[in-house]
């Protein structure tokens, strides 16, 4: 069955036609052309398709598009404001917290949300919150350093 759903994506209201069996990841990437949502394992293991659904990180390969009717979605494209990167994005650049960069959108998004909720996380808390995202280059050390250094900007807010 085809139906219309409306959702807010990165602040914009969108109405899309979707089939009942379509996944959120496909609607975001193929219909709304939001390519910061990466597709890799398709079964909820790698976490690269993570988006914020009503402020909560979820893996969009395990969510039906019809389920998010009326919801608010934020992807990595929705973080910067007026062309200015968020502190966590700058920290990732400063710390070289990426190699191939394929996992970076998911890590940036999840760490941004982590710092909004907990502006002063311990290393254990960072590891636990991000354990659902895999970096095959193994840049975890730099990612954790980047998050620690960005945390001061979130405390000021």
């Amino acid at each position, binding site marked *: *069955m085809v139906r219309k759903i409306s959702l807010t994506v990165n602040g914009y209201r969108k109405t899309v036609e979707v089939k*009942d069996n379509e*996944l959120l990841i496909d609607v975001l990437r193929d219909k709304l052309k939001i390519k910061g949502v990466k597709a890799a394992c*398709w079964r909820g293991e790698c*976490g690269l398709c993570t988006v914020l659904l009503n402020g909560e*990180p979820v893996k969009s390969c*395990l969510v*039906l598009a019809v389920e998010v009717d009326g919801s608010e979605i934020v992807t990595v494209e929705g973080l910067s404001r007026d062309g200015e990167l968020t502190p966590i994005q700058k920290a990732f650049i400063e710390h070289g917290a990426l190699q191939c960069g394929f996992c970076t959108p998911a890590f940036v998004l999840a760490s941004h949300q982590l710092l909004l909720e907990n502006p002063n996380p311990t290393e254990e808390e960072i590891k636990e919150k991000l354990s659902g995202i895999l970096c095959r280059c193994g840049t975890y050390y730099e990612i954790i350093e980047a998050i620690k250094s960005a945390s001061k900007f979130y405390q000021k807010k």
Partner: protein
Amino acid sequence: MSFGSPYFTLPDFTYHKPKTLREALELLEKYGDEAKILAGGVGLIAFMKERLVSPSHVIDIKGIPELKKLEYRKGEGLVIGATVTFSELESYQVIREKYRALYQAVKLASDSIIRNRATLVGNICEAIPWVDGPPPLIAYGAEVEIKSLDKVRRVPVAEFIKGPVEIDLEPGEIVTSIHIPDVPSGARSGFVKFNVGSEFALVNLAAYLSLNEEKKDVRLVYGAISPKPVRALEAEKILSSEGDMRTLIISAAVKASEELEVISDVLASEDFRRHLIKILTMNLLTELVEGG
């Protein structure tokens, strides 16, 4: 069950989002075993991709208010509704304080992003032998509440899970909640698991100890070692007997590693699992008896 090459698409189905439990039950009655319940989706959607299940109707129960219930009442215990996620359980203060085994199992289950969607009821309904939800529930003596259009029944979690991917649920029925009895003050519980490289346990263990003078109540529940979680009844007896607690713990751990039927599979041999049972039992019980 094979987790071979995944399909990228889902089979065709019609999506339903009922607003009341009655509406959901009517849909279930109408479509019978053609229908599957969708809560968090981390199990169902993955299984549909693998074509392990291909329902023609998917019934999303997240719009039903009464299934969101998460409530503790002194003397009665804890009620966990069918759409309550692991993350919600993790941040519920009562669970952290009173139901330590459940709290620790919730924290060790999968990863924190999956836990934002995954539900505890979904976890036990999948009845996969190596997941972390069932052992603590069985240790607390929890029951599931099952409703259909014409009746309500309650089944202990230990009996509800019949084997791998096999549960005591008829077409037309839905698990609405889990009921966990209140734990007496002084009772202690805990959960440990051993896993390598993946979140799936090779052995997991929930222990519940209530060592009052008059009545000793001990439960040791092991998961991932057999088709369904099992209690080590002989080891429990040892712990309930009189004697030096440290000696009893060692005897119980050895007994548990010998008395149970243990599988051997690609993840671990029977011998290794028996070794893990002994070590995990010893560590967890020591921690429970000596700590705090």
